[in-house]
């Protein structure tokens, strides 16, 4: 199976970089327990100290990485990939030590999602250059990313920020001079909605298939018992064999269910998240614009002050005013340039995103079918 890499993609395929997230292990006990994953890297990139190495990371480390990257790069208009969500319910089950299928599934889901997350991060040329990413992959011991804890001070701060962001989004009405952004945002939002729907439906499919598995298993047992009590030996044998066949079918269905589940459904969830990241990107742009506008209006006000002062003839205050004006003029130009830069980056990013989408979407289809 071959697929062409689109030419727009920066050629980091000159060098090799393979990352795998494996071996989830539970460390500790009770409510303080956590899962640790082995992150193994194989690479020919010169910026790394060696060719193959692995480290142990826990989930909050991944979140910490996202935080750092987001702080540094989101404001430049890059699409920073989002990590998988925290799940209090899922983790509690694992912590409490329930060794049932739902908690193993949860861990497996998470492991796969973390792997995909890292893949996305390193396939972004600019993010790969970031020292934090390198550190994440290489360094043996990372300082605990405390700010990712939900119940910490930093956590609360974040929640408040998120809330105020949401309010801001509603109140900022940007004069869209460039239709391209408007269109793209609309597309992205539509697509996200559709994917969410698809994800829900696939989820239902997976659940029904699991249902079918359970029922088939139960039926197989019942058939076996019926075969036992059948007095015609040939029929008895036939019935027992039917029971066996049904059993095998159940296993097959089970397999298919988990395939459907992991490949299809999870990928969809991933995409929804990714689109969220794209939207963040757009939001950043709007914020930048806002900053620019604010700076402009402040400048305007300063100019008015200057005019008034000129009129009132207060020379020393005037100088101060003039200084402030210069300062603000500089800021305005800076912000304007920032905004333009972010526009360009967002454009490039979205283009890249679309191509990645094409490429990545092909893969699960083919896999899911076989």
């Amino acid at each position, binding site marked *: 199976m071959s697929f062409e890499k689109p030419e727009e993609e920066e050629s980091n395929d000159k060098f090799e970089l393979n990352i795998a997230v494996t071996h989830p292990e539970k460390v500790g006990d009770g409510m303080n327990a956590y899962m640790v994953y082995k992150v193994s890297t194989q690479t020919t990139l010169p910026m790394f100290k060696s060719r193959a190495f692995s480290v142990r990371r826990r989930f909050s480390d991944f979140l910490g990485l996202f935080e750092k990257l987001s702080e540094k790069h989101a404001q430049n208009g890059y699409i920073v990939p989002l990590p998988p969500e925290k799940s209090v319910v899922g983790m509690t089950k694992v912590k409490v030590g329930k060794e049932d299928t739902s908690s193993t599934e949860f861990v497996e889901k998470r492991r796969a999602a973390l792997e995909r997350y890292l893949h996305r991060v390193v396939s972004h040329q600019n993010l790969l250059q970031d020292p934090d990413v390198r550190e994440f992959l290489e360094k043996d011991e990372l300082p605990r990313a405390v700010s990712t804890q939900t119940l910490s001070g930093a956590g609360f701060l974040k929640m408040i920020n998120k809330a105020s962001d949401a309010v801001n989004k509603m109140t900022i009405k940007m004069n869209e001079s460039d239709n391209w952004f408007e269109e793209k945002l609309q597309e992205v939002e539509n697509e996200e909605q*559709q994917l969410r729907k698809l994800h829900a439906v696939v989820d239902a499919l997976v659940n029904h298939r699991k249902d079918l598995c359970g*029922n088939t298993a139960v039926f197989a047992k019942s058939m076996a018992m019926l075969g036992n009590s059948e007095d015609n030996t040939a*029929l008895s044998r036939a019935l027992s064999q039917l029971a066996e066949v049904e059993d095998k079918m159940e296993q097959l269905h089970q397999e298919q269910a988990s395939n459907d589940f992991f490949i299809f459904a999870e990928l969809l969830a991933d995409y929804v998240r990714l689109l969220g990241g794209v939207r963040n990107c757009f939001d950043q742009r709007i914020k930048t614009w806002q900053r620019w506008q604010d700076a402009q209006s402040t400048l305007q006000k300063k100019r008015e002050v200057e005019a008034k002062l000129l009129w009132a003839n207060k020379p020393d205050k005037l100088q101060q005013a003039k200084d402030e004006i210069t300062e603000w003029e500089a800021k305005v130009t800076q912000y304007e340039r920032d905004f333009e830069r972010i526009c360009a980056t967002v454009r490039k990013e979205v283009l890249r995103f679309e191509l990645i989408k094409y490429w990545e979407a092909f893969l699960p289809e083919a896999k899911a079918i076989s």
Partner: protein
Amino acid sequence: MPTISQEYKTALRSVSVDLNNDVSLLIDIPDALCERDKVKFTVHTKTTLSVFQKPEFSVPRQHEDFIWLHDTLVETEEYAGLIIPPAPPKPDFESPREKMHKLGEGEATMTKEEYTKMKQELEAEYLAVFKKTVQVHEVFLQRLSSHPVLSKDRNFQIFLEYDQDLSVRRKNAKEMFGGFFKNMVKSADEVLISGVKEVDDFFEQEKTFLLDYSTKIKDSTTKAERMTRAHKNVADDYIHVAAILNSISAEENTALKKHLDKFSDMFEKLRKVEGRVASDQELKLTELLRYYTRDIQAAKDLLYRRARALADYENSNKALDKARLKSKDVAQAEDNQRQCMQKFEKLSESGKKELTSFKGRRVVAFRKNLVEMAELEIKHAKNSVSLLQGCIETLKNC
């Protein structure tokens, strides 16, 4: 008015065999009409027997008429030694009706295409239930007509021929018997059968076998029903997936669009196959189990009647002994005892015959259905595989 294709009918009839081999009395249900809750069957008879007024005739009958016929046969003393074919179950459109209701509620959330497809599915399901109920009613009559003794029953002939409403007769019958016998059977059944001391090895074996088998087969039937229903759910889900993929691809205009289209197409085709698998399984396996659960019950009923006759016989023996001791009413007691003995022996003899032929019939029917089901499943599996492979090919070449 839904009609039933001949092909489908022959397929459905395979649940029970040895029917309609005797050309002197041929019965079928060529037509049925569904009004609200009631189903009206058209019972068509072709006969060479002189006891009937015409060589060919049809009458309209309701489900309740079938039940009446069955009950009168059960309560006829003469047939106590025979396995009376089980009564057909009441037509049950509850499940598709409920689903149709839910579909109507959820209409707003689906695309037009999706809705039409789901509606089609439901209509097909409705039709399937309908066909099934026609079939069980038909089989009931055909078993009666092919039974050497039961086919000559006067009530049966009335059922076939009487061209006016049977509801008057039904009411009379109910008043006469008041369903008393049936209730008695249900409660005393198990206890009596297992309690009576068995003198005959054959019946001893049959008893143990039937009691055990009956519970097991009841269990299997419920489990099979659940399984086929789950299967149907999976098939339905495919419709939703296909629909959403369609709407996504409608808005997409990159190369991805073609992939999505193919993908959605594949789901569409797959679901048809899955749907067929589910319904075939339903028909061959679940229906088979359901039917024989009822049949086994009928066989148990026979055992019950015989056990009761045995109990009567033993009681009459005791009474005779007592009478002889007291030298009072001896003749009467002797008479009674002789009657009981005759009844018991007649029951045992015909019972043995019936149960043996029942066993043979059951094995043949199971074999036929299981073979057919296996063949169908293989066919569907092959279909799915070729479908999926074709899809992979087209996606690769895209």
